[in-house]
C-alpha cells in the first residue's frame, strides 16, 4: 500500500507537470521564444568570439599559425568555454541539448562577418589566409553526449574529448590545401608559410609565430596526435571553466532574485 501511495503521488506529480508542459499562457507566446533566441545570438556570438580571440587568437586567425602542436591544444580549449556555459544554461532552463551548437552557429556568423568585413574588405587580406575555424560539427557531438548521458560530468569528459577530435578533423579538411609543399626562396615551405611571408604583417615579425615550439616531440614523430590528446585534456578543463561561468555568472545571480529556483 505504501508503495502504491508513493507511485500514485509520483503519477499525480507527473500528470501535473505534463499539463504544465502543454499549458497555454495569455501573454507568453512563441514570439517570446523567437525574441530570446535572436537577441541572445549577438551576445553569445560576441562572448564566444572574444574568448576565442583572447586565448587562441593568432592560432585561429592565420593559416601559418594553424600548426600541429599548439593549434590543437589551445583552440579547442578556447572554443569550448562559452559553449559549455550555454549548455548548462539551456539544459537547466529548458532541457535543450543546444548550448554548444547554438554557440557554434552564432560564433561562426560573428567571426566570419568580422573576417570578411574587417580583414577582407577593410585591409584587403585574402580570406584564404585569415579564415576562422568552425566548431559546429564538434558542438553537435558535445550536445549529443549531453542528451544521451544527461550528465555534465560525463559530458565534460566524453563530450570535451569528442569535441576536440571532431573540431580538429573538421578544420583539418579546410587546412589541407595550405599544407602542400612548394618551392619558395630556395626552400621547401608550405603554402601557408608562403602566405605568411608574402602578405605583409608589419607588427608580426616571423619569430613571433609560435609554431613547433616544444619538447614533446619524440612520439614516433606523430606530434599532432600527442597534441590532440593533450588538447582534449585541456578542453576538459575548459569545459569546467565554462560550467563555472554558466553557474556562477549567469544562473546564481538570477537565483538570488527569484523566489525559488
Amino acid at each position, binding site marked *: 500500500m505504501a508503495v502504491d501511495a508513493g507511485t500514485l503521488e509520483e503519477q499525480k506529480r*507527473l500528470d501535473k507537470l*505534463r499539463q*504544465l*508542459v*502543454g*499549458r497555454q*499562457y495569455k501573454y*507568453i507566446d*512563441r514570439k*517570446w*521564444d523567437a525574441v530570446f533566441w535572436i537577441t541572445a545570438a549577438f551576445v553569445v556570438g560576441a562572448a564566444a568570439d572574444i574568448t576565442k580571440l583572447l586565448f587562441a587568437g593568432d592560432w585561429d586567425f592565420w593559416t601559418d599559425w594553424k*600548426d*600541429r602542436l599548439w593549434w590543437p591544444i589551445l583552440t579547442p580549449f578556447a572554443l569550448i568555454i562559452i559553449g559549455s556555459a550555454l549548455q548548462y544554461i539551456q539544459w537547466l*532552463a*529548458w532541457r*535543450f541539448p*543546444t548550448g554548444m*551548437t*547554438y554557440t557554434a*552557429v552564432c560564433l*561562426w556568423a560573428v567571426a566570419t562577418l568580422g573576417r570578411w568585413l574587417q580583414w577582407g574588405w577593410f585591409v584587403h*587580406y*585574402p*580570406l*584564404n589566409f585569415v579564415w576562422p575555424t*568552425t566548431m*559546429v560539427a564538434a*558542438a*553537435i*557531438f558535445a*550536445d549529443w553526449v549531453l542528451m*544521451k548521458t*544527461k550528465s*555534465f560530468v560525463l559530458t565534460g569528459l566524453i563530450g570535451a574529448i569528442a569535441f576536440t577530435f571532431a573540431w580538429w578533423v*573538421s578544420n*583539418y*579538411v*579546410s587546412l*589541407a*590545401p595550405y*599544407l602542400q*609543399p*612548394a*618551392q*619558395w*626562396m630556395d*626552400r*621547401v*615551405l*608550405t*603554402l601557408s608559410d*608562403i602566405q605568411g611571408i608574402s*602578405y*605583409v604583417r*608589419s*607588427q608580426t*615579425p*616571423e*619569430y613571433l609565430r609560435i609554431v*613547433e615550439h616544444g619538447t614533446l616531440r619524440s612520439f614516433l614523430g606523430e606530434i599532432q596526435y600527442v597534441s590532440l590528446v593533450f588538447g582534449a585534456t585541456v578542453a576538459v578543463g575548459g569545459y569546467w571553466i565554462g560550467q563555472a561561468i554558466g553557474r556562477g555568472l549567469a544562473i546564481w545571480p538570477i537565483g538570488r532574485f527569484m523566489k525559488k529556483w
Partner: protein
Amino acid sequence: MTRKTLRRLCALVFMALTLGLLTTPPALAHGERSQEAFLRMQTIGWLDTNFSSTSVQQGQTFTITGTAKLMDQWPNSLAAGDPKIGYIGVIAPGPVVIVKERTVNGVSAPGRIEISKGSYYQYSLTLVGRRVGRWHIHPSFAVKGAGTVLGPGQWINVTENPQGFRNEATLYNGDRVNLENYGLPLVWGWQVVTVLIGLAWMLWWTVPKFHRTVTNLAVTSQIPLNDDGVAVGLNSKRDHRVVNWFVLVTLALMAAMWIYQAAAYPVKIPQQVVQFAPPTPTDAPADTVSARTGKAVFDPAADKLTIQLQATNNGERAVQVSEFSTSTLDFKNQAVTGGQVDRTLDVQPAEPIAPGETKQITISMVEGVFQSEKLIPVGEAQLTAAGILVFQDDQGQKSTAEINAPIQPNF
C-alpha cells in the same frame, strides 16, 4: 539637471566630437617619430637604403636594398643587451605590397635570422605592388625581445593593372596556384555545410510547437538536472532518434571529407620554421677608423646639431668623412660623395685623415629636421646623439665607426 541643460550638454559634446574629427589631420606614414630617439639612433644603423622604383603597376616588382648594422652600442635595456633573433621585413599599411624574395648577405631568408651585435646585414627585399594607391613603405628590422625599428621610408605609387593581381606559387607537383583565392571554395563550402547542419539542429529544437523555450522553465525547475523530461513530455523518444541521425550524418560527412582531403592533397608537410645565421658579408664596411666623441651641441634656433670627435685612421689609405647616418636620416658630405644630396653634412677641417693620424673633427648638420623628426631627445631619459659615421678613401672603400655623444641642448 533639467531637460534643457541636458540637451545643451549633449549638443556641446556632439559639437566637440565633430570638431575633433574635422580638425584632426589624417594619420599618414607609420608613426616612426613616436619611438624614443635613443631607440632609433642606438639600435639599428641604416646605410645605403635604396628603393629601385617609386611607382609600380599591380603585379610589378621593385626592390629595397641596403645595409643594416646591429650597432655595438645596442642598449642594455633591450633584449637583455644581447639580441639573438631578428627579422628583416617591410612596414606597410597592410598587404598593399607582397614580399616575393628576401636575401640577407646574399642568402635567401624567408623567416627569422640569428643576429649579433656589431654585425652587418646586407638585405634585398623584392616586393610586388598589390593594392592600388599611394603607400609609405619602410624596410624594418625586428629584434626579439626589443621590437621593430623602421628604416628610411618612401612613398610608393601602385597603379592599376587591367589584368588584376595574382600571387602565384608553384606546388611540389608543378601546379601553379593563385594564393589570392586558392582553396577558398573548399573552406567556405565545407564550413557552410557544417553550419547548415548546426542550423537544422537549432531549428529542430526551437521551431516545432512541441519544443517551447521560455515556458519550459516552469517545468524544468521542478525536475532534477539529470532528468531529460521524457516522462513529462519535455523531450521525447523521437527527439532522441533525431539527434542520433544528426550525429550519424555529421560523422558520415566528416569521414567523407577526410577521405576527400587525403586523396586531393596527398602530400602535406607541417609548417616550416626556418632560422639560420646569415654568412658574414664579404664586402661589409671595414672598421679601420675609430672615433671618440666629445660633446654634441644642439642649437634649436638654427635646428643645428654639431658633434665634436676625434678620429683615428688605422687603415692604409687616407680617408674622409663621407656620411653620417642616424635613425632614418642620412647626411652626406657632398665634397666627398659628389652628386645631389638630400641632407648635407659639413665636416671641419675638410682635409683627409692620413693613415695612422688622429684628428679632431667637427661635423655639423643644419637641415631643420631634428625637431620635426623628434631626434633631439630633450624630454627623454637618454640625452645622446648616436649614429654611424662613414669614412671613404680615394678608391671608394668605406669604413664605419659608431659614435655616441652626450647632447648639450640649449633649452
